C-alpha cells in the first residue's frame, strides 16, 4: 500500500498534447476515479502511471519513489484491463500465479495467495478452467484476482466493467466496492460511467481535453460542480443551463422570461452581470402558489416509474428538463409553474465556464 502522486504530468503525441499537466496526490488506500468523456486522456494518464506509456513531462511518484524511468514490473502496481487480458492458454490458477512465479515467490506462498484471492472472488470452483470456459463476469474476476495476489502498492483499472452487460456491471461494481473496503489498496479507476464514479470513488477526478476540471468527493462534484463541463457531465438527466443576469440589487438572478430567482447569498458586486445559470432537473418543483416562476410548456413526459422526466420549454424557447419523483402529474401541452428549490442554483462565468463561488 502506498500513496500515488501525479505531479504536473504531461503527455504529447507529436504536436498533440493529450494530457496538459495534471496534479493530484492519491492517499494511501484511497479510491480515485478518473472520469471523463471518450478521448479526454483518462487511459493515457493511467497508462503513464502503469509505465505502459512514456511520460512527456512531470513526475509520477508511487510510495515515495519517482517511477518515471522504471519498467511497469518495477513499479509495484497491478492493472485490470477492459478486455480482461487473461492468458488464454493458462488455467485460472496459472493466470493468477504467473506474475508471482516470475517474481520468484515460492510455491507454497503462491498457492496460499491464489487460494485466498479465489476465495474472496468466489473463483474456487474455476481454478482449473481456461478463460475461454468462463463468463465475462468470471473472467473479469480472474483479472482482478491476478491483481490481488500480487499485493501491489496500487491497483489500476481501465474501464474494467465496460465489456459487461448492464446487470452484471452493477453486480461487479458492488463487488469492487466490497473488495476495496476489504483490502483498502490505493486504486486508480478509469471510467466514463458516472454511476460507477459516484458509487466507487472516495474522490473523483473529472477530466476533459487532458485537463482536470475538478477533483473532489462524489458529492462535492455533484453539489458544487467547478465548471459548466462538470455540471453537464455529472448528473442524469443533465443539468439545465440557462442564460441569466444578476439583478441590479444583486439579490437574485433574472431568468430570460423575466422571472426573478432569489440567490442564497446576495452578490451585489456582480450586479447586472450576465451569467450561466445551472439548475438540476431534480431540483425543480411545481410551484403550487405560482409565485416567482416562469410558466413552462410541457412538450414530452417520460414516466420511468419511480421518476418522471418532463421535457419543457420556457417562454423564450429555452428547453428545460424537470425530474419529479413518482408518477406524472401533468401531460403534454400543460403549462406548469415551476420553481427551483432554494439554494439549488449554480452560477457559472459566461466566458470561462468556471463556477462563481458563493
Amino acid at each position, binding site marked *: 500500500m502506498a500513496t500515488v502522486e501525479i505531479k504536473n504530468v504531461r503527455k504529447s503525441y507529436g504536436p498533440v498534447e493529450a494530457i496538459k499537466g495534471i496534479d493530484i496526490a492519491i492517499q494511501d488506500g484511497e479510491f480515485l476515479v478518473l472520469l471523463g468523456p471518450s478521448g479526454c486522456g483518462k487511459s493515457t494518464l493511467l497508462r503513464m502511471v*502503469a*509505465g*505502459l506509456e512514456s511520460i512527456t513531462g512531470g513526475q509520477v511518484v508511487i510510495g515515495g519513489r519517482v517511477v518515471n524511468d522504471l*519498467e*511497469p*514490473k518495477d513499479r509495484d*502496481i*497491478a*492493472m485490470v*484491463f*477492459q*478486455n480482461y*487480458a*487473461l*492468458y*488464454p*492458454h493458462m488455467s485460472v490458477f496459472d493466470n493468477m500465479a*504467473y*506474475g508471482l512465479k*516470475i*517474481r520468484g515467490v515460492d510455491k507454497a506462498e503462491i498457492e496460499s495467495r491464489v487460494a485466498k484471492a479465489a476465495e474472496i472472488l468466489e473463483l474456487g470452483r474455476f481454478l482449473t478452467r*481456461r*478463460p*475461454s470456459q468462463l463468463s465475462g463476469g468470471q473472467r473479469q474476476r480472474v483479472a482482478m484476482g*491476478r491483481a490481488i495476489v500480487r499485493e501491489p502498492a496500487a491497483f489500476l483499472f481501465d474501464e474494467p466493467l465496460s465489456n459487461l452487460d448492464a446487470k452484471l456491471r452493477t453486480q461487479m461494481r458492488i463487488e469492487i466496492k466490497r473488495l476495496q473496503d476489504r483490502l483498502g489498496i490505493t486504486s486508480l479507476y478509469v471510467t466514463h460511467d458516472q454511476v460507477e464514479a459516484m458509487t466507487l470513488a472516495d474522490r473523483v477526478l473529472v477530466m476533459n481535453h487532458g485537463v482536470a476540471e475538478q477533483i473532489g468527493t462524489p458529492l462535492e462534484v455533484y453539489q458544487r460542480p467547478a465548471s459548466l463541463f462538470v455540471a453537464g457531465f455529472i448528473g442524469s438527466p443533465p443539468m439545465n443551463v440557462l442564460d441569466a443576469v444578476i439583478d441590479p440589487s444583486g439579490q437574485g438572478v433574472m431568468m430570460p422570461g423575466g422571472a426573478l430567482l432569489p440567490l442564497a447569498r446576495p452578490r451585489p458586486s456582480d450586479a447586472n452581470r450576465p451569467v450561466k445559470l445551472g439548475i438540476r432537473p431534480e431540483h425543480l418543483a411545481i410551484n403550487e402558489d405560482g409565485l416567482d416562476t416562469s410558466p413552462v410548456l410541457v412538450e414530452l413526459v417520460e414516466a420511468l416509474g419511480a421518476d418522471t422526466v418532463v421535457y419543457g420549454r420556457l417562454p423564450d424557447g429555452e428547453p428545460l428538463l424537470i425530474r419529479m419523483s413518482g408518477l406524472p402529474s401533468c401531460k403534454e401541452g400543460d403549462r406548469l409553474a415551476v420553481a427551483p428549490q432554494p439554494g439549488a442554483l449554480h452560477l457559472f462565468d459566461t466566458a470561462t465556464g468556471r463556477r462563481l463561488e458563493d
Partner: protein
Amino acid sequence: MSNAHMTEPRTTGRRLIDLVPHIVLIVGVLIFAFPIYVTLIGSTWDAATIGRGSLPMTPGAEAWTNYSQAWSESHGERASYTPVRLMLMNSLIMALSIAVGKIAISILSAYAVAFFRFPLRMVFFWMIFITLMLPVEVRIIPTYKVVADLGMIDSYAGLAIPLIASATATLLFRQFFLTIPDELVEAAKIDGAGPLRFFFDILLPLSKTNIAALFVILFIYGWNQYLWPLLVTNSADMETIVIGITKMIGTGEAANDWNLIMATTVMAMLPPVAVVVFMQRWFIKGLVDSEK
C-alpha cells in the same frame, strides 16, 4: 419443429441433392486413390509379372521380398540403387531440418518485427518480404556457388540451410502476432515478463496450432524438394528419396525393377502421411478450443 414440417414433402428431392456431392466426392477419391492402389499392388508382385504389362488388381505374394530388398539392398535384378533405408534417412533429416529451421527462424524474426520498435524496422520487414520473390530455383546458381565454396556439397547442411531462409513463414507468424491484443502484451509486462519470457511462456504456446500447421506444410515442402538436392548431392549415400525414385525410373523402361520402384514409392509416401496424421490432433484441438 417448423423446419421438419417444411422439409417433409420434399424428402426425396432432398435425398437426391444430398447424394450428388457424395457421388462427386467418391469419384474424386477413386480417381485420386487409384494410382496409389496400383502402386501398392505393384509392390507385391515380382518384376516379371509387372514387366509383362498386365498387372493383376489383387495383391501378389512378393511383398516381403520386394520391401526388404528395396529397404536394405543396393542391387535389384537389373540395376543398382541406393537402399531406401539410407534415402529415407537423408530425406527425413533434410525435411526435418528445413521445417524446424524455417519455423525457428521465422517465428523469431516475426517476433522482432511485430513486437519491437527498432531502427529500420520496416526496411528489414521489406527485405524479408522481398525474398518471397526469390525462391531457391531463381537463385540456384549463386546459391550453389556459395554452398560449394563453403564445402557443403554432399552434406546435410548443404541440403537444408539454403532452403531454410524464406519469408512465407515469417509473414504468416507476423500476421498472427498482430492479432494478439496489445492488452495481453501489456498484462504480461506488468506481470513482469521480459521479452524472452513473454516469447516462451505466452507467444509460443499461443502459436501452437500455427506451428503445427506450418510444420506439416514445410515438412512436405522439404520432403518433396527435387532440384536443389539433385544439384548439391553427388554421392549415392546422400541421395534423398525423391531423387532416388527419379533415378530408378530414369534408366529406361526395359531395365527397371518395377517391383522395387513401387515398394520404394510406397515407403516414400509414408513419412509425410505419418506427419499429417500425427499433427492432425493439434489442428483439431486448435479448432475446437477456439480460444485466443
